C-alpha cells in the first residue's frame, strides 16, 4: 500500500487524441465501432468491384474481359473480402457501438484489445489484396480453400494463410470482448432474459466464433504444413485425405454462415417492434430459437458436400438435421410476422429493409431446404442455384440486416436524421435490383449452369444478361448509401433522444449523439 499526504496530478485534458492519433490509439467503443463500420463499407466496395468484374465477364457468352485464371481469382477474393472484410466487421462494428449502450456498460470490457482486434484487419486485407500482384496471382480455388487445388496457388499461398489467421485472431478477440462485456458488465437489473435481442444474438454469435475459429485456424495451418513441411494431413499420396479438409472446413464454415446471419436476426428483432409499435412477439422463443439454430449449425456441415460420397446413413442424418433448422428459423419468421400483425406500422427506411429481410431471407431459407434434400442436391450441387441460394441469405439477409441497423441507429450515432426520401430510394433500388441480380440465377442453376466459370453455353445468355444488369445497378445504388451516411453525419434535422416513436431499450434513453462513456441517469431496467 502506498500512503502519502497527497500526490500531484497534472490537470491536463484526457479526451481523445487529435487527428489520426485519435483513431490509431482509439479505445472508446464508439470510435472503434465507427472504424469497423467504415472499414466494412470500404471492403464491401472492394468486394463489389470484384463482383463487377465477374458480372461483366458473364454479361454475355465467351471470354471478353479477363482470362479464366483471373476470373477464378476474382470469385475467390470476392468471397473472402465480402465475408471476412465486409459482413463480419460490419456486425462487429454494430456490436461495438450498441452492446455497451444496450447493456448499460460504460465501454467494452477490454478496450485496448478492442483497438488491436480492429487494427489487425487493415493489415490482413492489404496483405490479401497484395496477392493479386504476386507471381501466380491471388488464390483461385474458391474461398473454401480446398486441397489439392489450393496448393497450386503461387507465391500468394502463405500470405493467404497468414491473412486468414489474422482475420481469425481479430474475430476471436472481438468475440472475447463481446462475450465478456455482455456477461460481466451488465447494469444492475439487466438479467439475461431482459437483454435486447441484438445483444442476445451477438452473445450466441460470439459462442459460435469461439467454438469454430480454432478449427479454421488448424485447417489452414495443416494446409500450410502439407505444402511446406511435407506433412500429409490432406495428401492422399502420404496417407492423408483431402475430403477430410472439406469436413473440417465446413465444420467451421456452416457455423460461419450463422455467424453472419444471427446478428442480423437481432437487428431485425429490434427494428420490427419499434415500427410496429408493439412488443416483440415471443421474446423467450426468439432467444431459444437462436440458441437452437446455433446448436444445429454444428451438426449439419456435411450438407455442403453430399456429392463427395458418404454412407447413406450419413446423408440421411445431415439431410434431416439440416431440415430441422427450418423449425427454429420458422419460429423466428412467425414471431416477426406476429409482431407486425395488427401493429400500428409505419414504413421508414429501417422498417422497409427489415420487412424485405423477412421476405427475401425466407426465399433463401426455402432454397436452402431444397438443397438439403440429398437427391435434389446431387442435381443442384456446384450450380448457380447454390449461388442464388447463398446470395439470397447473405445479401438481402445479412447485408440488408446491416443496412437496416445503420439506418435505425445512425440518428443515435450522429445526432442527425438521415434523408428519408433518399433512404427510401436506396431501399427500392437495392430491393428491386438484388432480385433482378439473384433470382434469375435460380433458373440458371436449375438449367444446369455450373458456378465459378467465366464462359457458358448460349442457352444461359438471357438470364446472365439480366443478372449482370441487376448487379451493376445494385452495386451503383450503394453509392447512394454512402452519400446518405455522409450527408447525415455532416448535419441535418436534429434527432430527438428517442429518435423513433416506438423505440425501447437503454440506448434510446441517451441523448443523441450518444456521449462517450456515460448515461445521463443510472439506467433502470424494467
Amino acid at each position, binding site marked *: 500500500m502506498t500512503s502519502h499526504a497527497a500526490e500531484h496530478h497534472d490537470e491536463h485534458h484526457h479526451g481523445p487524441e487529435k487527428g489520426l492519433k485519435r483513431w490509431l490509439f482509439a479505445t472508446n467503443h464508439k470510435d472503434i465501432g465507427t472504424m469497423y463500420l467504415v472499414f466494412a463499407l470500404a471492403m464491401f466496395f472492394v468486394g463489389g468491384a470484384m463482383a463487377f468484374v465477374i458480372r461483366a465477364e458473364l454479361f454475355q457468352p465467351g471470354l471478353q474481359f479477363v482470362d479464366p485464371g483471373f476470373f477464378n481469382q476474382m470469385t475467390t477474393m470476392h468471397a473472402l473480402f465480402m465475408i471476412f472484410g465486409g459482413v463480419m466487421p460490419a456486425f462487429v462494428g454494430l456490436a461495438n457501438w450498441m452492446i455497451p449502450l444496450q447493456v448499460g456498460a460504460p465501454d467494452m*470490457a477490454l478496450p485496448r484489445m478492442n483497438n488491436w482486434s480492429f487494427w489487425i484487419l487493415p493489415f490482413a486485407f492489404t496483405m490479401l489484396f497484395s496477392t493479386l500482384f504476386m507471381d501466380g496471382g491471388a488464390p483461385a480455388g474458391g474461398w473454401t480453400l480446398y486441397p489439392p487445388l489450393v496448393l497450386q496457388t503461387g507465391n500468394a499461398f502463405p500470405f493467404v494463410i497468414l491473412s486468414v489467421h489474422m482475420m481469425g485472431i481479430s474475430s476471436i478477440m472481438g468475440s472475447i470482448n463481446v462475450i465478456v462485456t455482455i456477461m*460481466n*458488465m451488465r447494469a444492475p437489473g439487466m438479467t439475461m432474459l431482459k437483454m435486447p435481442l441484438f445483444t442476445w444474438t451477438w452473445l450466441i454469435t460470439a459462442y459460435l466464433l469461439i467454438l469454430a475459429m480454432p478449427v479454421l485456424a488448424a485447417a489452414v495451418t495443416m494446409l500450410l504444413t502439407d505444402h511446406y513441411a511435407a506433412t500429409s494431413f490432406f495428401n492422399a499420396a502420404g496417407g492423408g485425405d483431402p475430403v477430410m479438409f472439406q469436413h473440417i472446413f465446413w465444420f467451421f464454415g456452416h457455423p460461419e454462415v450463422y455467424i453472419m446471419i444471427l446478428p442480423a436476426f437481432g437487428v431485425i428483432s429490434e427494428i420490427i417492434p419499434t415500427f410496429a409499435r408493439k412488443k416483440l412477439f415471443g421474446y423467450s422463443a426468439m432467444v431459444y430459437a437462436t440458441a437452437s439454430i446455433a446448436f444445429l449449425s454444428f451438426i449439419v456441415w456435411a450438407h455442403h458436400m453430399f456429392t463427395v460420397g458418404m454412407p447413406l446413413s450419413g446423408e440421411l442424418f445431415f439431410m434431416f438435421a439440416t431440415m430441422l433448422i427450418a423449425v427454429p428459423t420458422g419460429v423466428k419468421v412467425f414471431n416477426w410476422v406476429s409482431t407486425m400483425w395488427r401493429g400500428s406500422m409505419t414504413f421508414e427506411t429501417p422498417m422497409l429493409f427489415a420487412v424485405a429481410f423477412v421476405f427475401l431471407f425466407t426465399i433463401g431459407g426455402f432454397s436452402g431446404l431444397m438443397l438439403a434434400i440429398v437427391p435434389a442436391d446431387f442435381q443442384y450441387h456446384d450450380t448457380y442455384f447454390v449461388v442464388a441460394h447463398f446470395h439470397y441469405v447473405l445479401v438481402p439477409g445479412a447485408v440488408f440486416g446491416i443496412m437496416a441497423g445503420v439506418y435505425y441507429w445512425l440518428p443515435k450515432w450522429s445526432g442527425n436524421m438521415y434523408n428519408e426520401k433518399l433512404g427510401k430510394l436506396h431501399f427500392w433500388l437495392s430491393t428491386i435490383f438484388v432480385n433482378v441480380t439473384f433470382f434469375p440465377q435460380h433458373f440458371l442453376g436449375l438449367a444446369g449452369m455450373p458456378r465459378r466459370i467465366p464462359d457458358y453455353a448460349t442457352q444461359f445468355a438471357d438470364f446472365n444478361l439480366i443478372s449482370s444488369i441487376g448487379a451493376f445497378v445494385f452495386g451503383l445504388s450503394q453509392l447512394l448509401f454512402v452519400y446518405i451516411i455522409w450527408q447525415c453525419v455532416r448535419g441535418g434535422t436534429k434527432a430527438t433522444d428517442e429518435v423513433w416513436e416506438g423505440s425501447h431499450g437503454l440506448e434510446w434513453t441517451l441523448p443523441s449523439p450518444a456521449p462517450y462513456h456515460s448515461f445521463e441517469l443510472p439506467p433502470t431496467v424494467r
Partner: protein
Amino acid sequence: MTFTVTRERVVSISPNCSLSPRQARIFMASLVIPTIVISTALALAGFWLVLPFAGLEMLAIAWALRISLRRGRYQEVVRVSDRHLVVEKGQQKVLERVEFPRYWSAVKLIPASIATYPSRLVVGCRGDSLEIGACLTESERRGLCEHLRQLVGPVEASPRLAIPR
C-alpha cells in the same frame, strides 16, 4: 457503476460486476467443455493441430474474464471527517491511501476539452490533487461531485458534517 454513502460519511465507489465467481466458472465451463469435445474428436481423427489453437483461445478467454472480474473488485473509498479528507484505493485491500486536510481541500470537476469525453473528478489541496470516480459514468460522477462538495465544503471552510438521510 454505483457509489453508496454510509452514515459514517464514507463514500464508496466501485464498478459494476454482473458475474459472480461461481457464475464465471459456469460460463467458462460452457465454453471449455464443447471446445474440448470438438478439438479432442478432431485430434483423435488425426488433426491434432486443433488442440493448440483451441487451448490458446481458451487461455485468452480465461485471461480476459479474469481481468474483467478483477476490475469489478476495484474500490475507492472517500472518508470525510472533521479534520481530514482521506481517499483509499484498492482491490480487496487498500493499495493507495491519500490524506488531505479538509479545511484546505476542494472538489473539482474538470471537463474534458471535447464535450463528449468524460470529465475528471479531482479532490485536492494546495496544488496537489487526486482523481477519483474514473470508473463512474458521467452523470454518476457529477452526482458524486455535488455530494462531495457538500461534505468537504469550499477551501478554507469545513462545514459541519451532517448525517445523510
